[in-house]
């Protein structure tokens, strides 16, 4: 049996699959970020905090109300999205006409507040959240043991990503969104309620982050810092994919998950920076991003 640089093919296959799973998280998160950036021109620095809230709300639903994983998968994004809508209405909406620097600063401050509050009430050690019974165990694929839950993560994110893509690129609502990105005033002058659309979009993007949070809760430590550093990586994914490109964000998310996975095999120390190295290279060669269009 052949080996690649001393790595047996089974291991390589396993790593590719794992990369794909991590890519699922990147894809869902960067999708939310791309949707928000695309429409609101806001770099949503609270995205990581909202991802964390998604996981926490799932935990709260279970521990305070006895509501399990499956309903939480829907409820938690709704709850967090609703909180996002409140933030958008009360604060973020005042910044649309300004440089995106200000949006970044505001959402950065909000992230500090949200994370700080959760730290104060729930500590930093993390909270347990079990894998739902239906998804426990796994499949032996021959080359690796694939936990059922991980399989579900891929399926769920692919469905959500492509559903979102379809909605934005192929439906009338999506056309409104894209048009409002370019020229909200004119779209308003056609009789469309742009502010409400923007608010809902922000809520939706935040909901995506929370959805990723719920997906993450059973396998990653549910703690207030879980999203703190993530935002930078996810933002890099959006940039590599091409700002404003929905499909770009999705494909790059999955793709970079795989690349990162391979780095973990061949040069594990480098797996933390590989995304940034790729980003630097991509921006040098194709500044508009892999899937971005030059305008």
């Amino acid at each position, binding site marked *: 049996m052949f080996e690649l640089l001393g790595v047996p093919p089974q291991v390589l296959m396993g790593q590719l699959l794992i990369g794909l799973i991590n890519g699922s998280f990147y894809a869902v998160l960067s999708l939310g970020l791309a949707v928000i950036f695309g429409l609101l021109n806001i770099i949503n620095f609270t995205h990581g905090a909202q991802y964390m809230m998604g996981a926490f709300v799932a935990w709260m639903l279970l521990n305070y109300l006895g509501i399990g994983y499956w309903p939480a998968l829907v409820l938690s994004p709704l709850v967090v999205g609703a909180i996002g809508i409140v933030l958008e209405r009360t604060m973020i909406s005042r910044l649309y006409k300004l440089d995106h620097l200000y949006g970044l600063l505001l959402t950065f401050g909000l992230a500090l507040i949200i994370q700080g509050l959760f730290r104060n009430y729930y500590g930093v050690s993390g909270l347990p959240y079990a894998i739902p019974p239906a998804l426990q165990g796994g499949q032996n694929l021959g080359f690796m043991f694939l936990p059922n839950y991980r399989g579900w993560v891929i399926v769920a994110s692919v469905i959500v990503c492509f559903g979102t893509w379809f909605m934005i690129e192929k439906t009338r609502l999506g056309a409104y969104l894209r048009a409002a990105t370019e020229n909200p005033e004119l779209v308003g002058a056609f009789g469309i309620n742009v502010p409400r659309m923007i608010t809902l979009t922000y809520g939706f993007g935040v909901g995506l982050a929370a959805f990723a949070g719920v997906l993450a809760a059973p396998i990653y430590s549910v703690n207030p810092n879980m999203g703190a550093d993530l935002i930078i990586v996810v933002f890099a994914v959006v940039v590599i994919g091409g700002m404003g490109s929905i499909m770009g964000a999705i494909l790059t998310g999955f793709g970079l998950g795989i690349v990162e996975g391979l780095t973990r095999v061949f040069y594990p120390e480098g797996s933390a920076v590989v995304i940034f190295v790729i980003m630097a290279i991509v921006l040098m060669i194709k500044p508009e991003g892999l899937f971005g269009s030059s*305008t």
Partner: protein
Amino acid sequence: METRTETGTRDALLEVSGLEGWYGESHVLHGVDFHVKQGEVVTLLGRNGAGKTTTIKAIMGLLDKRRGSVKLGGRETISLQARHIARMGIAICPEERGIFSSLSVEENLHLPPKLAEDGLSTDRIFELFPNLKERRRSQGTKLSGGEQQMLAIARILRTGSKFLLLDEPTEGLAPVIVQQIGRTISALKEEGFTIVLVEQNFRFAASVADRHYVVEQGRVVDMIPNHALDANIEKLHAYLGV
């Protein structure tokens, strides 16, 4: 004012009086008065920076800070938001055309929601502007300037709005296309559309309009009916500084 005594405003579809408008701190409109009747084509003429575009925007609700009165079919709209004004059956073709680059030609065309049932059908539009049919799959802003202008007009015809605000539809266009747009406006007038047209090119304006308002420093300073244009040409030249 001259206009009022001559035609009266009772049957006006649009009645603008004492309209003031600001961009941030700068006061741009200082009390614009004019009216438009059902089925009329009226132009706003004036020099650069006179406030024509601003007037159009204020009517459409696109100016953040405005005061005075804009009545549409008898209803006061000064404090309404753009989208509510649009739903009253009025549509704008902006100065900079506003074609969306992330949308295809067809998506651009279908973007404004239908407000009434009697808008032009897509077939009818393609009949009017064959170029658009040919290129309906391409990206909106890849069209040539003239085609973009056609698209900007076409997309508001679909909505069923019978009251159109056209801001310099001929700017930067080749003479041959200017003529085509002139024919289109005449055809629309035949169908009972009401149109407010902003123009630099007053020869073009004369070929389509019923009346002309002269705007100067944020005010309407004169009204000249088209049939009296020849008699007033000296005066008009003086207004426009030719």
